[in-house]
């Protein structure tokens, strides 16, 4: 079950490259851009003629929407090409189908198969034992690491659009629990081999955040939680970063409320603009707000930096995310080192 992969003991923290890492798990607070950045990472990791697989586990068809293709079936499909002949595949895992598939191979269901679907047992089982979903999903992810559905060739990278910060640790650690429950047998063997993959150097968990209080707090919390259960934390992906327009000097003046009113008025006059107090005050007010925001962001950045993980900054794209935006974000990740693993 465990792919015979070169193991790297610890994910190295050198400038954002992840040699040896093939499984990139992307988590983060809800709405921060997990799906978007997981997709961008899959594109980045496919560039230069590689092949990556992007896996969706929450059944929302977010990937299809992002790449502008029809809803994905429960099968690996090519959804995009990347620079230099790379290929991005995607898989939207259907939990019930995956569960049936699993039971079929492990237990040779026969007649019971009919009853399972018919009586709503699958629905029942995944509801009453939410961990079961996670067992199935993590199992499918590890299966994807071994080779593609179509030709069995290995993907250079597998990227998972994972559950949000509140649930990701439980999601990734579920097999630990299972191994604890099942003393012997195929279930335990599988659980153990999945945990081995997740804890190895081929796995890395990236956290998406924004420079705001709640996402940063959740990032700090989840990093501690992941470390606590021995899972390798990868990079911190800071999304929707807005570059300050004002120079550092102007920002400092604005922050200390010392912008020179008279000079500003003179400047406005030189440009042939109105120099009324209303205009000057408004401009100064905007600058002060911007400076406050920058100061707050600096505090969040410091909190994130204290985690000691490489950070990546992804620009806020004012027009929203279309295919072009996705490639732009992928390029930003590559520039900062993410797409270069193993090269």
């Amino acid at each position: 079950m465990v792919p015979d992969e070169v193991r790297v003991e610890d994910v190295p923290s050198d400038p954002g490259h992840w040699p040896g890492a093939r499984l990139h798990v992307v988590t983060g607070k809800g709405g921060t851009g997990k799906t978007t950045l997981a997709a961008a990472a899959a594109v980045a990791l496919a560039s230069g003629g590689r092949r990556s697989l992007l896996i969706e586990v929450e059944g929302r068809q977010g990937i299809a929407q992002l790449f502008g293709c029809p809803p994905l079936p429960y099968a690996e499909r090519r959804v995009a090409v990347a620079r230099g002949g790379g290929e991005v595949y995607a898989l939207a895992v259907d939990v019930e189908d995956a569960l049936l598939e699993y039971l079929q191979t492990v237990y040779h269901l026969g007649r019971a198969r009919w009853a399972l679907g018919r009586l709503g047992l699958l629905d029942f089982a995944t509801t009453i034992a939410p961990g079961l979903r996670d067992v199935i999903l993590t199992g499918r992810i590890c299966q994807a690491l071994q080779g593609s559905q179509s030709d069995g060739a290995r993907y250079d990278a597998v990227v998972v659009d994972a559950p949000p910060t509140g649930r990701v640790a439980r999601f990734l650690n579920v097999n630990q629990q299972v191994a604890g429950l099942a003393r012997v047998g195929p279930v335990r063997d599988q659980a153990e081999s999945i945990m081995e993959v997740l804890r190895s150097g081929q796995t890395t968990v990236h956290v998406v955040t924004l420079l705001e209080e709640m996402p940063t707090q959740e990032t700090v919390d989840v990093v501690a939680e992941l470390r606590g259960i021995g899972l390798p934390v990868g990079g911190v992906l800071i999304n929707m970063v807005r570059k300050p327009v004002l120079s550092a000097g102007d920002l400092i003046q604005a922050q200390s409320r010392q912008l020179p009113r008279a000079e500003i008025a003179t400047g406005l006059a030189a440009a042939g603009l109105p120099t009324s107090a209303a205009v000057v005050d408004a401009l100064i007010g905007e600058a002060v707000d911007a400076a406050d925001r920058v100061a707050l962001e600096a505090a969040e950045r410091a909190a994130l930096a204290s985690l000691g993980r490489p950070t990546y900054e992804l620009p806020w794209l004012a027009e929203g995310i279309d295919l072009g935006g996705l490639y732009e974000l992928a390029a930003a990740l590559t520039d900062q080192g993410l797409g270069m693993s193993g090269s």
Partner: protein
Amino acid sequence: MTPALNVDALIGDPQIRIIVCCGAGGVGKTTTAAALGLRAAESGRHVVVLTIDPARRLAQSLGLTTLDNTPRPVSGIDESGGGSLDAMMLDMKRTFDEVVEAHSTAEKAEQILANPFYQAVSSSFAGTQEYMAMEKLGQLRLEADRDPDNPRWDLIVVDTPPSRSALDFLDAPKRLGSFLDGRFIRILTAPAKVGGRAYIKVFSVGVNAVTKTLTKVLGGQMLNDVQTFVAALDTMFGGFRKRADHTYALLSDSSTTFIVVAAPERDALREAAYFVDRLDEEEMPLAGLVVNRMYRVSAPGLSAARALGAAEELGDLDNCGGSGDTDSDFGGTAITIGLLRMHAVQAEIAARHESLAKRFAAGHPDIPLVEVPAASGDIHDLDGLRAVGAALA
């Protein structure tokens, strides 16, 4: 033309007893709920705010530090209008436990609470949080009306869970309900009931196969646990369900109103539109839409284009007079260029936000709408909430 949403009219209306704040995750539901509650309390109402997942600093400002799943008074509010404000933060698991305790004997409750499947469902079933928010709302309403002559609260403001979809709040309770009505559950529980035998016979082939499989997959002990859990749920679920139905009915009562919160972004507004349509379908009363975190610029008559043009012109001027020495900048040109460029960026965002809000309004001409400006920092204290409250009116 779209009417303006004025929350003062809402909180000034004694007939309104429940305000529910809905929306997609991260748009500002919790902030809006807290701001509304505070404003209502300071205008003289006796308010309780049920928050679900407040940001840490906001929770501290509201005094939500002891998490005992009951409302506590918020200090620091202006009580000169005769009002009061209590706040609480939902503890989902605890609420579920309380429901179990309320609907079964002490002995049985203990058995259920210890059951591993109960523990899994009560802490992580997708929808438990929504379900429990509704349960808590029902409890608060009962508590409020315990003494009709002297109600403890005359207004309940409810925040909703941070689901990806606002619709989850309305759908989740039904989902839990339909799960418990599932065919498989009925089969598992059928032998316990009179008349269940015939039913079980019809399905016995399937059930035996399933039981065998389950035993194989889960082991005998687990199967046992499942059956205990399901049987326990079944006996207490009647009352349980009745309460949820009652609370759901409360939501369509004329004393309840919904406020939908959205961010000025395409996706968030689309989500809001779904929700608005859904409320309409369910005949649930909608007060209006809050478009939160709107960018605003205030320099009169200074459009993005004009500011940018002027900045360029100044730059040219500066270059002509340039001696290469940055200090030679005559009369504040550099700083003015910076401010104008920044203004242009802000003005452009503000214009986009405005146009998104307008487009929503055009598509929903009857829905009252109010815009709340983006503060430069987080909203984490009573003053911040007051500012949001003022923008809502």
